């Protein structure tokens, strides 16, 4: 491409946003979504490359090129069907996928700094479609498939991997039952990601569209406890998928960590998202309301917790991270949103200890200042303590968001299931099958904490293999 041509490329159509000054204090969705005209204009920027690298960048291989062309032609319904062909949860993916590293990261226009806004277009197509009703519109298929009761498959956990698996199989006539330990389906989409980033109505809609396809959701059923793998197979299940995620929160093992006022991000976000604690006392689950809040970690979950704390009325929220801003694993867009809303960063700092008052409530945290040394195995420069440089932060609410480990409930009660040294399930990567025949697994319980769409990719891989074996 010549320089002249490059100069012609127009910038991507801006996403309308809620005003930062207002949104920092409410739970309404931050990004408002494209209008029809914006979507069409954005889609028309697409070069329709011969080799569509964008598709390879997507873990569930959405045919981006085709659906974008259809948007440009204003054939939104057909665009939806193309997306739904490979992606069961488009309205969610369009919101929470790290598109910059996936489809948009492999877009030919990326070097210009203005790749096609594939995620935003996906969101537009899904929202536009779901705005109406009827079986066909809900599912993306011309007719609702009647599931065959003899082809029964069960899934543990109702997060993105199981939802994807269910969507794939149900659309092909398999009767899928999903067991969820909590009282509401969605897994991390429900308890973890806040309303302002992913409205629960969007998750609910995706769940309902699966129910229209005949997928059955059984809540309050804990895999391995309420119902075991053995019971399922003896009830005629042909295959079982384990998608229970990596919900076990990690702590820092520091003095004072169990003081009242120190929470895991999982607890904090679950109280707010799943239990609607922000509406206490209308809802019964209380939520700690900090005035001066510190959040530990640098990922999406840390930023979700920080932005939630601010919305719950904190006067200051500091995110403490041991490297620099550039190394934070959070999506750039979410970091920028957070900073715009007033979240502060305390970089190159790492917690040493938590201190409380006589009643055992958190009052302050002691931090160790760091500097960056040589690169470590991850390729990032390793943070090294700056001797003698400590920092005290007054805080009445500390939220720990330094990652999660494998949930052990199912794996502990299913003897014979092969795990790796981190407690994650070992699978054949090309089929998703575990060491137990016809038992498949995918998502964070296999890979450790990763993204929604990677979990979906794993659900799809397992579903393909299960279908092959069933038919």
């Amino acid at each position, binding site marked *: 491409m010549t320089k002249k041509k490059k100069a012609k490329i127009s910038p991507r159509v801006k996403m309308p946003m809620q005003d930062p000054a207002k949104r920092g204090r409410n739970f309404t969705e931050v990004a408002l979504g494209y209008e029809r005209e914006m979507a069409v204009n954005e889609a028309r920027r697409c070069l329709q490359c011969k080799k569509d690298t964008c598709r390879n960048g997507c873990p569930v291989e959405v045919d981006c090129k085709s659906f974008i062309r259809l948007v440009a032609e204003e054939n939104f319904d057909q665009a939806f069907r193309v997306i739904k062909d490979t992606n069961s949860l488009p309205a969610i993916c369009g919101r929470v996928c790290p598109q910059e590293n996936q489809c948009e990261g492999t877009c030919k226009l990326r070097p210009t700094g203005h790749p096609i806004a594939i995620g935003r277009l996906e969101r537009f197509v899904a929202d536009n479609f779901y705005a109406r009703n009827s079986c066909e519109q809900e599912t993306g298929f011309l007719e609702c498939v009647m599931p065959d009761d003899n082809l029964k498959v069960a899934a543990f956990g109702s997060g993105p991997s199981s939802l994807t698996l269910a969507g794939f199989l149900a659309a092909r006539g398999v009767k899928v039952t999903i067991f969820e330990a909590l009282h509401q389906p969605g897994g991390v989409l429900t308890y973890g990601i806040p309303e302002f980033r992913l409205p629960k109505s969007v998750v609910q809609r995706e769940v309902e569209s699966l129910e229209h396809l005949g997928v059955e959701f059984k809540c309050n059923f804990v895999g391995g406890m309420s119902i075991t793998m053995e019971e399922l197979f003896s009830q005629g299940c042909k295959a079982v998928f384990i998608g229970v995620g990596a919900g076990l929160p990690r702590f820092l093992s520091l003095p004072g960590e169990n003081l009242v006022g120190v929470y895991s991000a999982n607890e904090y976000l679950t*109280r707010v998202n799943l239990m609607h604690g922000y509406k206490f006392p209308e809802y019964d689950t209380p939520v700690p309301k900090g005035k001066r809040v510190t959040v530990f970690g640098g990922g999406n979950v840390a930023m979700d917790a920080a932005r939630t704390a601010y919305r719950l009325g904190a006067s200051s929220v500091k995110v403490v991270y041991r490297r620099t801003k550039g190394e934070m694993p959070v999506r750039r867009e979410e970091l920028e949103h957070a900073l715009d809303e007033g979240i502060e960063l305390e970089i190159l700092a790492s917690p040493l200890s938590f201190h409380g008052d006589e009643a055992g409530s958190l009052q302050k945290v002691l931090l160790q200042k760091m500097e960056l040394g040589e690169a470590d195995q991850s390729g990032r420069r390793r943070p090294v303590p700056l001797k003698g440089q400590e920092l005290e932060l007054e805080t009445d609410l500390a939220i720990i968001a330094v990652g999660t480990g494998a949930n052990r409930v199912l794996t502990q009660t299913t003897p014979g299931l092969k795990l790796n040294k981190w407690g994650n399930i070992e699978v054949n990567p090309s089929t998703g099958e575990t060491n137990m025949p016809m038992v498949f697994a995918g998502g964070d319980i296999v890979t450790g904490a990763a993204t929604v769409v990677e979990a979906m990719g794993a659900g799809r891989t397992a579903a393909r293999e299960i279908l092959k074996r069933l038919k």
Partner: protein
Amino acid sequence: MINKILKKRILIPDRVSELTIHAPHIARNARPGNFVVLRLTPTGERIPLTIADRDPDNGTIVIVYLVLGKSTALLDTFQEGDIILDLCGPLGRPTEISRQGQVVCVGGGTGIAAMHHIAKGNYEAGNSVVSVIGARSRDLLLFKPELEKISSKVLISTDDGSLGHKGFVTQVLEMFLKENPGTREVVAVGPVPMMKAVAKVTSAFEVKTVVSLNSIMVDGVGMCGACRVSVAGETRFACVDGPEFDASQVDFDELMNRLNAFRSQEELSMKLFKKSNVK
């Protein structure tokens, strides 16, 4: 119908009741030591309650609750035929029961109900059960007849001396351990101060002691970490690593502190509930 209350038995009026609930999948898989998490209304919170008994043949479980806050007060308004909105279980690791002769089961207050399932499990495993139970007065003593059926001995204490020894269960336990130096295991369920006191008594006799902890929980399946307790200096989750732990290793003071974390909100909730529930 699943989660239907089949039977309600008032054990102490306005304070403690027992519900028999239809929940076949929980009844089938529940073991002594397990608990359930329940939620009563769409705006309700999730609360853990110990399974006091189960009947897999009839597909029922038994729970006993003490009216303490809004959720248990609301549960107390439920009658036979009502449905529990969400009932999840069985949860937690079952009690480790081995055939070893004699086990002393200590229960205080509402904890006696939870202790009953453990005592029954030991009895069924062929162990001789000595039950040591205590309450403030004889009218508040739960499960006495049930425990008499499965125990070789039931030792009783009441704070007011209305039945048995006047004083605390720990004093009765101490006397028993003095007279029976070969005692190998004690299981204690009750208020945290009682469990802490039991741990102190048994440590002098070097008897293996297990306590069942009632920490605050949200999900109950190892996801939130609200229930974390320090055991032998390490952070453990009562919902998936417990609820039972070696009493000598538990940091009871930290547990008491954490149980108070939402005290003011709980009081507000209860106050609003009482106001709206005036008959």
